[in-house]
């Protein structure tokens, strides 16, 4: 059994313009100490998928179906109190904007303290000592001093470290990191990614790393899922998805990314058009209007994700590419 097992998860958002299928029929699993990368362009459903795995959807505006099992415990439809217990001990989320997880008018040390006291039932003095330890562990210089700082007094990179410290407070078995380095400079991004690597190895934590940055997933994940219009369209080991992808969108995404190794004035392989409006999805493959390989069938019928091969590689396409093309 995997640590995390997601089966046929769908999320519908109830918007003023109608019901929007933000996540459609997603199945995935994450094993112990694995890192699953999820890539896709803006609006492809990455954040909604992460929030639904966490059980963090606004109940009035969204409905989820399917199954999310963490260590065998079903989270879809779980009681709020059970979810809170899971959030406290088993699964933590890191958001793109650290400010969404921090209270701007409370000293960062106090925020970590509270998390520790609520989650682990530590005493005030034990919590303070542990908070300083955590700040040190996430590489914050002079942690005693920073303990008393307000979030606004810290740089973006330091704030993300604080959020990571809070996420790790209870040594969760799974971290969901949604674009944890997106707003940060590359050298700070490298620091944060290295920190996550180190902590993951030390704490034996599994991770779902969501990003639109192919460079980040290429080097930091063991498995990869590519999302398009709310669905996983290709998944497998990271190496297979990069080197042996079968789904045209995966290839288009890889080829449209500029490379550091490209010479000046390299013509990029752009994907024509833009991602579909999820409120007006047709019957067929959501990529069909932009796909150079689309056949008549693609416009009529939606390809299902294939049965994974022995190395867990699967793709959703009627006209898959030859491997190694």
């Amino acid at each position, binding site marked *: 059994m995997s640590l995390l097992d997601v089966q046929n998860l769908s999320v519908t958002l109830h918007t003023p313009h109608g019901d929007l299928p933000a996540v459609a029929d997603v199945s995935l699993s994450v094993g112990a100490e694995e890192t699953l990368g999820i890539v896709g*362009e*803006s609006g492809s459903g990455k954040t909604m998928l992460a929030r639904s795995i966490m059980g963090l959807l606004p109940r009035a505006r969204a409905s989820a179906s399917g199954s999310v099992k963490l260590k065998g415990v079903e989270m879809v439809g779980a009681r709020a109190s059970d979810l809170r217990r899971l959030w406290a001990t088993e699964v933590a989320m890191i958001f793109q904007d650290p400010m969404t997880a921090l209270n701007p008018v409370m000293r960062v040390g106090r925020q970590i303290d509270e998390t520790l006291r609520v989650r682990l039932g530590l005493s005030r003095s034990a919590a303070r000592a542990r908070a300083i330890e955590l700040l040190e562990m996430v590489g914050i*210089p002079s942690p005693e001093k920073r303990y008393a700082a307000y979030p606004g007094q810290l*740089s973006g*990179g*330091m704030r993300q470290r604080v959020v990571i410290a809070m996420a790790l407070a209870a040594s969760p078995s799974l971290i969901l990191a949604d674009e944890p380095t997106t707003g940060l*400079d*590359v*050298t*700070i*991004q*490298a*620091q944060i990614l*290295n920190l996550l690597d180190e902590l993951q190895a030390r704490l034996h934590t599994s991770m779902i790393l969501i990003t*639109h*940055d*192919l*460079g*980040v997933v*290429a*080097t930091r994940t063991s498995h990869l899922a590519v999302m398009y219009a709310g669905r996983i369209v290709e998944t497998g080991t*990271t*190496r297979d998805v*990069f*080197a042996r992808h079968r789904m045209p969108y995966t290839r*288009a*995404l*890889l080829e*449209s*990314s*500029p*490379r*550091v*190794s*490209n*010479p*000046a*004035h*390299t*013509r*990029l*392989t*752009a*994907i*024509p058009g*833009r*991602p579909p409006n999820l409120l007006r999805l047709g019957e067929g493959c959501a990529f069909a209007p932009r796909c150079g390989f689309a056949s008549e069938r693609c416009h009529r019928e939606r390809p299902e994700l294939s049965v994974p091969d022995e190395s867990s590689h699967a793709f959703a396409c009627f006209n898959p590419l030859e491997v190694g093309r």
Partner: protein
Amino acid sequence: MSDVLLSVRELTVSFPHGAHRVSAVAGVSFDVLRGETLGLVGESGCGKSTTGKALMRIVEPTGGSVSLEGVEITTASGRALRQLRTRMQMIFQDPISSLNPRRRVRDIVAEPLDCWKSATGSERDALVSTLLNQVGIDPVANGTRYAREFSGGQCQRISIARSLAMRPQLLICDEMVSALDVSVQAQILNLLEDLKAEYGLTLLFIAHDLAVVKNVSDRVAVMYLGTICEIGPADVLYETPAHPYTKFLLSAALEADPDAPQNREVLQGEPPSPLDPPSGCRFRTRCPLAQERCALEAPLAREVSAGHQVACHFPLARTT
């Protein structure tokens, strides 16, 4: 090809901040050659945008000189300045907010023409249609729609059309594809290359994304805390960086390839505040090679190979 279109010497910009001043650009010198694309990279807050804006006098330089084909911009005023400004155009990062949401696309593109009365009536309309066609926006179907009805990529196309209306010589692109998804980013970068050829444009391409900059630039300048560390031909600079900061920056850029080499040296710490920059070399507080001299003396730019200059007392050993 190698004559100088824009020449920048010892440009400084500082902003008042309480009783102090933020030293955003601290003595920057470079040339932009006619017909080239010069990339300007560096991390947030290093002064890229301020440099771009100071060239256009969108912010006022506090010192130094900027000249376009030998005509000084920093002291120009009135009509002369406005005339100079039509020859240089700037495109910004946030495609949606840099367009007026309540104006129609055709009128947005025609703004500079109307302002200068350089084309009126049917001539104006024909020019606007041509521009819109060139950036891939259908002038008939979409010309009368409002800017707010368009996606980020489409807004950036409209910005490009507007910036070309006066047939500028120099286009300053400030993070123009940073807010776009890769598939749309590739469309805009290709479009930019096409228009560059068609209009004979010279580009100053400001961005933090090292891969994007490498794809478009003939030469690249690297900025750190208001100064230029290194400038040179793009392939030489990426292949054999001579400044320690450039080396760290490049090793932090992740190639989208699981088999890319992984021996990454990570730069420690964060940039100091431009309110109180270090003495001497501004990179010295994070530089593993720093020596006493680095605190005493700001390094001057010197040539390490043809057209490749570095501002460092102890440039990295050259392998070529």
